[in-house]
């Protein structure tokens, strides 16, 4: 393999990895606050792409406006899921909320099959995403350049919200100690609602860019990216946003490199992520950046 194609694959891996990172952040934020694996997160990712698809194809809206609206709609869906399915179970045993999360996920997938149709749809990607650029002999598609760029912008916005705004401060406080934060007069439900909104918005943004990269969308498209993103969150250290970003990049780059260097193994690329998960759980369950969670008795 020469240097050009290596750079090409590396950029490919970074763009896939930044998509995993965007999804992983939603998992890790919700887990950090509620200790809940939001199984429906991958399906919000799927819904985001369908919102964008219908806004472009049926309402004929310009591309940037459809993407923005789709992200906003997904944020509302995320908040709704929390309001309807998770909030009533806050004081219930943890396993109840997990089962409900699986139920919501399965509901969105199957309602998607019934309402949207099981047949894959071709996603209308904008010109700048499908354009091929020539960078010093390496041919790189627009997706490989723009996806990381947009992801970095979104991450900067996220970090600004988390570390520089009042709601971000509340989120960090709730994640550290929910009870004390409640005693300080913070409206927990509102903070959790915003957390779901932000996570879902990022997942939808990831979903739209995913559809630009792989322009076939179907109602079950969220399952594997969602699961890999959760693995990325575990690898990076669950509950840690920077960790989720790093984990996403690691998983994305490894996945692309396996396919590039060992084409015979490409059928097993999904299985390999599983091996990474098991190894991390055995060797470093707290992940790359995670610290040991304090157990409350």
């Amino acid at each position, binding site marked *: 393999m020469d240097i050009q194609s290596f750079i090409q694959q590396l950029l490919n891996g970074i763009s896939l990895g930044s998509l995993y990172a965007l999804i992983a952040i939603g998992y890790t934020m919700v887990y950090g606050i509620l*200790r809940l*694996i939001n*199984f429906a997160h991958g399906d919000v990712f799927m819904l985001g792409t369908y919102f964008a698809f219908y806004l472009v194809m049926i309402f004929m809206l310009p591309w940037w406006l459809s993407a923005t609206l789709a992200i906003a709609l997904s944020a509302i869906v995320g908040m709704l899921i929390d309001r309807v*399915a998770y909030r*009533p*179970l806050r004081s*219930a*045993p*943890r*396993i*109840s909320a*997990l*089962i*409900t999360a*699986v*139920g*919501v996920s*399965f*509901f969105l997938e*199957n*309602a998607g*099959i*019934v309402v949207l149709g*099981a047949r894959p749809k071709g996603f209308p990607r904008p010109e700048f995403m499908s354009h091929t650029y020539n960078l010093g002999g390496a041919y790189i598609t627009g997706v490989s350049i723009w996806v990381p760029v947009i992801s970095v912008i979104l991450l900067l916005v996220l970090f600004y919200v988390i570390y520089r705004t009042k709601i971000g401060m509340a989120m960090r406080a709730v994640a550290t100690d929910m009870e004390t934060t409640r005693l300080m007069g913070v409206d927990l439900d509102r903070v959790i609602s915003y957390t779901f909104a932000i996570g879902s918005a990022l997942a939808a943004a990831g979903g739209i860019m995913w559809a630009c990269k792989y322009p076939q969308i179907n109602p079950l498209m969220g*399952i*594997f990216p969602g*699961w890999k993103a*959760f*693995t990325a969150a*575990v690898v990076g250290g669950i509950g840690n946003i920077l960790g989720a970003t790093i984990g996403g990049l690691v998983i994305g780059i490894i996945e692309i490199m396996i396919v590039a260097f060992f084409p015979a193994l490409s*059928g*097993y690329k*999904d*299985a390999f*992520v*599983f091996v990474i*998960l*098991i190894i991390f*759980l*055995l060797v470093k*369950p707290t992940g790359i950046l995670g610290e040991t*969670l304090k*157990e409350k*008795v």
Partner: protein
Amino acid sequence: MKREWRMPLTILSIAIFALFIWWAQNHLNAYYIRVLSTAAIYIVAAVAYNLINGVTGQFSLGPNGFMALGGFTVALLVLPVSQKQIVYFLQPLIWPFNSFSLPQSLFIVALLLAGIVAAIGGIIIGFPTLRLKGDYLAIATFGFGEIIFVLANNLISITNGALGIKGIPEYSTLMWTWGWAIFSIIVVSNLAKSSYGRAMKAIREDEIAAEAMGINVFFHKMLAFTVSAFFAGVAGGLLATLITTVSPSLFMFTMTFNLLIIIVLGGLGSITGSAITAVLFAFLQELLRTVEAPIQLGPIHLPGVAGMRMVVFSLLLILAMLFYRRGLFGRKELSWDLILSIFERKGEGVGTTWKKEKMKLS
């Protein structure tokens, strides 16, 4: 009720039930036999699933993966050699499976091996995840189910890829399926009642407190998970020899989802509750086939919608979790005492009620 009556009563009712199964096998038509067998297989899988999810309180999403392991194991063991040569036309089957097949008399060996293979899979998944606190088991088992699907599609010289294995001999009679159903209920409910089971329940209620009381948390979680995987593997093997074909898509996540509905509606932690809802579910699933079929209402024609059943089931699960969390049985078990207490309550007159009221007041 006197303690010494329970055992003979249980044995008697099992004997009557065995007679019914024998009658059903010989007199009912193939469709009903199929539904009854499916119900029994659901019992085996659901009762085992309840052991880890309900009794021990560890959220696993693995049964479909373990059933796949068991299903493919049995298929490889009992498929006749001549049929193997026909089925594996893409790539020849690997040694040693291509050179032998177990006769019907050794079906039990195939089922036990299916359970053991699944249990080994359970140990491999359980070892890294169950040492940790938190929900790593859920995410690892979910991944495991999906990975088994990927592997079954790609390891063509073992599983024949997406085409699956056809022509498996139909060994699963009602006697086999219901025999395993009753066996699994007896084993799991006795395990849940034993000191091991009490330790598992302690872990469910409070892991840290259980550990402080000297319970080996990892060992008991592992025990529950491995036993659960074993029976899931057997259920997979029974399913393979019931429908005579296995393919990767047979063991998709839908399977786990169905089992999850069964154990939630039956009551998480109630073994007999899962068994009863498993039977109800098998029949409900057949009834709901009409939802997906085209409906003709006078002049109005509604086209059949594939997947509608799963929408109904997922709504059912969410609603059950929100409004009916204890399920049909809660954590109670169906026992002779429970049945008797229902009759007693019906028979009680004014006097007894008054007595009870008085007792409550004092």
